[in-house]
């Protein structure tokens, strides 16, 4: 098992945001976590990356407990996150942002190769490599955030609502790239409110409702589930 959450609880002050979440991700897997506003999707990803400490439960990566580690150590193990709201460094250039994605890596040749690969995925970032992050459009900022996460050469990529606020054509573009990345063996956990897209891309899905897993299963069967249809697919 690549990543496993077992009965994870997270509290903000005294308020429970996650109440016993269990998730499993295999090597090279593509799973999605869907749920409405405030369900706890971001909290789940934040807990995996070490930005929140679980009050109980266990998170392990390749059978090693990681929930007590700091975010920088978790990144080094191979878990990268594209956070909610993109969070690029706006006063740094596109290239500086990407280089910081590779902050912990010392193999210059491999970093160079991955930089070229990111520019291959996102040619618009190449055109804008010396521009400040703040001058990019929303879609370009999302591409930069994804590119930055890829620069760490992750085994597991966590994405928090990458489609939010983007034009459909940009969403298509990003969806295609996620498939490419997954095709190269990188496991993906995609958090989305856009359940149509997420269930189309992923192999397995989890439905999160008020801090716990309400449903889980194959993406196909979830997409046919009556509850999911009415609550999340807007059919």
């Amino acid at each position, binding site marked *: 098992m690549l990543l496993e959450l077992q009965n994870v609880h997270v509290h903000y002050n005294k308020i429970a945001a996650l109440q016993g979440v269990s998730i499993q991700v295999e090597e090279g897997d593509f799973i999605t976590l869907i749920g409405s506003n405030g369900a706890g999707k971001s909290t789940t990803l934040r807990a995996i990356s070490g930005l929140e400490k679980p009050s109980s439960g266990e998170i392990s990566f390749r059978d090693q407990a990681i929930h007590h580690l*700091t975010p*920088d150590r978790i990144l080094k193990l191979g878990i990268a996150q594209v956070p909610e709201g993109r969070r690029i460094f706006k006063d740094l250039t596109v290239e500086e942002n990407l280089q910081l994605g590779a902050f912990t890596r010392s193999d210059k040749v491999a970093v160079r190769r991955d930089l070229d690969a990111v520019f291959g995925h996102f040619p618009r970032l190449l055109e804008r490599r010396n521009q400040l992050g703040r001058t990019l459009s929303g879609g370009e900022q999302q591409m930069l955030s994804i590119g930055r996460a890829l620069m760490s050469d992750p085994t597991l990529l966590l994405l928090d609502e990458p489609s939010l606020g983007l034009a459909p054509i940009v969403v298509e573009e990003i969806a295609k790239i996620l498939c490419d990345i997954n095709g190269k063996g990188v496991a993906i956990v995609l958090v989305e409110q856009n359940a149509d897209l997420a269930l189309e891309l992923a192999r397995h899905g989890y439905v999160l409702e008020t801090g716990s897993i309400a449903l889980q299963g194959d993406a196909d069967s979830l997409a046919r589930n009556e509850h999911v249809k009415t609550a999340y697919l807007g059919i």
Partner: protein
Amino acid sequence: MELFLQSIINSFIQGGFFALWAVGLVLVFGVMGVVNFAHGELVMVGAYTIWLLHSQYGMGYIPALGMAILLVLLIGLFMERFLFRPKREDPLGGLINSIGVLFILQVAALIVGGTGPAKQVAPPFSGTLIIEEIVRVPYQRLFSIAVCIAALSLLWFFLTKTKLGWSLRAVALDREAAALQGININRTSMIAIGVSGALAGLAGALMAPISNIYPHMGHNVIITAFIVTIVGGIGSLPGAVFASVLYAFLHTFITAYFSGTIATMSGLLIMVLVLIVKPTGIMGRRISE
């Protein structure tokens, strides 16, 4: 005319010092989110180190300058590790701790130097550069401004051209996003306060031969540093440097033609005006979107 030309030269020298004081404060505030009220006292410790090692114990000026940098750097690291780190989620707690350090260092200066008149250090570089019998610049001041400019250029190079420098700026811009890139926040804070302390120690060491040395000399430093960081835009290093030079001109000219007290009061007035009219400073950006 002579006074005018002389004041221009003096303004640049003052501006270099102001900038050196301010960038350390800005760096720590940016990266760690703490207002280090003891920053002026760190400069004071640098000056006292020169007085003690160079004037009292006869160590060479340059080695003593190195010791001043090292000592203040170590005090900075100590403050980060034991006073600021435990208060990382509580900026007010960090600020109060720094005020504690301020008093402790002042008392330490009294213990080491005793009471009595302000101390002075004979300038190790004697002589004066005289241009056309109009402008006079003591070599000691020339040395100071050259070192100031070198130190600020080095800092600029570090922050804009090296990956480690980018990581400091990344932490200042968005600490969580930086942590998600594998940047260790504790280590980055250590680097920020280390650089800040080294610059404060250097500033104190450079000031020692050309100003009075006394336990409260940090007041002037912190007030000036506040004025130029607020006018320059909190968190903006280029803004702070630019505002330092501007304020140095204002300060030097008002001091030359009126008095030093009026000069400082004008600075505070400008700071308040900037806070009312453009709280982000002349080069600062809005924090939110």
